[in-house]
């Protein structure tokens, strides 16, 4: 203790303290953060189970028969793809009101999600969940995918899928961690602010090409740090503050007299 007290005026003390504070905050968050919710019910995957789950978890907003209310849209005819996208990414059930539903730890496991999807699909015809082959990035052509992505998606999701801002707090999320299946479902169903890109607009093969392009972007840049792929703003901040700051520091050091 005495040694610590003696060094509290050391010039690197603030840096050490700051690092310690960051470590403690991070550690406490890691312990207390909500972990992935795991329900252990053995679901039978049939429509009846889905209906029960729906009435217990979704009906408050979407209505007892999924007919929609003032606060939430009707789910008749949205299809299994829509339910799987919203529930498997944790966007639904929504926790709070806000500009848009956030990605969060999912509330239902695969079986329950499948049951919910089966129930909603039984209410009216809609897009089905794509097969594994339809979303396999290895089978797509990233070059064609880049063409499609540039024209239809890059204006909101950024040229490499890093995401971007929309109006009034809404935003297009980053696609770096989105699963191929969820990317396909999003194009097919147009969740929230996103418009629908049906199979006539972007064919199933082209959708797979887009997935191949997006997965290819996850290797990062051959040049080194991408700085979030956000373009001129983050690169400019880096160059002006870090780069020129270092140059100014070097000039001051060269000009200063040695002690």
């Amino acid at each position, binding site marked *: 203790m005495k040694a610590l007290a003696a060094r509290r005026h050391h010039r690197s003390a603030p840096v050490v303290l700051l690092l310690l504070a960051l470590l403690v905050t991070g550690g406490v968050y890691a312990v207390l953060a909500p972990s992935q919710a795991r329900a252990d019910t053995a679901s039978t995957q049939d429509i009846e189970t889905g209906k029960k789950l729906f009435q217990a978890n979704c009906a408050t907003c979407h209505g007892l028969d999924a007919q929609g209310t003032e606060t939430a849209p009707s789910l008749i005819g949205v299809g299994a793809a829509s339910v799987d996208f919203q529930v498997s990414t944790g966007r639904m059930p929504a926790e709070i009101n806000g500009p848009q539903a956030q990605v969060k730890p999912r509330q239902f496991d695969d079986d329950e999600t499948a049951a919910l999807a089966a129930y909603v699909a039984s209410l009216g015809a809609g897009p089905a969940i794509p097969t594994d082959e339809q979303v396999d990035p290895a089978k797509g052509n990233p070059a064609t995918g880049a063409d499609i992505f540039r024209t239809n998606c890059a204006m909101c999701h950024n040229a490499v899928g890093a995401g971007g801002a929309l109006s009034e707090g809404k935003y297009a999320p980053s696609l770096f961690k989105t699963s191929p299946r969820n990317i396909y479902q999003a194009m097919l169903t147009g969740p929230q602010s996103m418009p629908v*890109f049906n199979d006539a607009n972007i064919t199933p093969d082209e959708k797979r090409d887009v997935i191949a392009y997006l997965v290819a972007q996850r290797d*990062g840049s051959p040049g080194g740090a991408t700085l979030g792929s956000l373009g001129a703003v983050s690169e400019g901040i880096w160059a002006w503050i870090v780069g020129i700051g270092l140059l100014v520091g070097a000039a001051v050091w060269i000009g200063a007299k040695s002690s």
Partner: protein
Amino acid sequence: MSESKTDVTVHPDAEHPEKFSDPGLPSHRPRQADIDPKADKRAERQVVVLFLLSVIGTIVALWAYFAVRPDGTTGGVRTSTLTLGIAIFFALAGIGIGAIHWAKTLMNDHEMVEERHQARTTGETREIAVKKLQDGIKDSGIGRRGVLKGVVVSALALFPLTIAVPLISSVGGDWDVSKFRDTLWKKGTRLTYDPTGRPIKASDVTLGSAVHVIPEVTEEYRTTDEWITEKAKAVVLMVRLDPRDLNPPAKQAGWDYDGIVAFSKICTHVGCPVALYEQQTHHLLCPCHQSTFDVAHGAKVVFGPAKRPLPQLPITVDADGYLVARDGFDEPVGPSYWERLK
């Protein structure tokens, strides 16, 4: 020179002696290395370490060049570039920082004044130069030979035109502003998907869809340079709304087809592509300056610096059910220019 030498003596008869006197150089302060042999040794060791760091950097760079080859994958190229870059950084920074540290800590740091030599040459040198020039003029006979004088002046005066004319005439490129007025859209032009060029069936445009549209052209035309400029003017964003949500201005009533509306994608502010469509609010957002247009109300401006709504493309379907333009745009697309309404 001696007359510009700093005068540091104080004149007691001057009016404001302390205010204007030159303080001169501060007194010399010895460094640690000057007075303490241990510090001197330490500084020397530091310089040695810095130069050794440079040697190690060079060796690592050479090793990395042969051992860490880019293997064709993105990650491989990154590792190779990064290793080489860091090693070369140490190789160069070691020399640079070492040299400066050496100069700052070990070399003599006594302040000294070194006077500049006078810029003006002596009178003798000047006379020789003037004489040489006069001899040359006399030798060339430019005073006697009037024609020669004339052609030399003409040739020198005309030559800059070879640079100036192409430079000035290429400023601004094409001055024909009437080209801005018309796009490829005409009565009956089919709407096609961008970039594939497939024609669009009205029944394929489902509710909530956003489709990026280009006019139908021949395959040959697509390979020309003109296509790029024309496409840049003709791009259209098409969405399908519930017809009950549509509330266009009177002029544009009936320009939709069963809730399908098509608007120019070129912002009326400074011409960025307005393509961020929010399905739930029917708002179209321009990424450059956040101009926001309401598609349900004839793309009127609801936010941002744009002053005019986006021009609407009137559409209908042909006999086969494909979407076609009912007419071209009724106004020039994109930002304002002087001759816009002529």
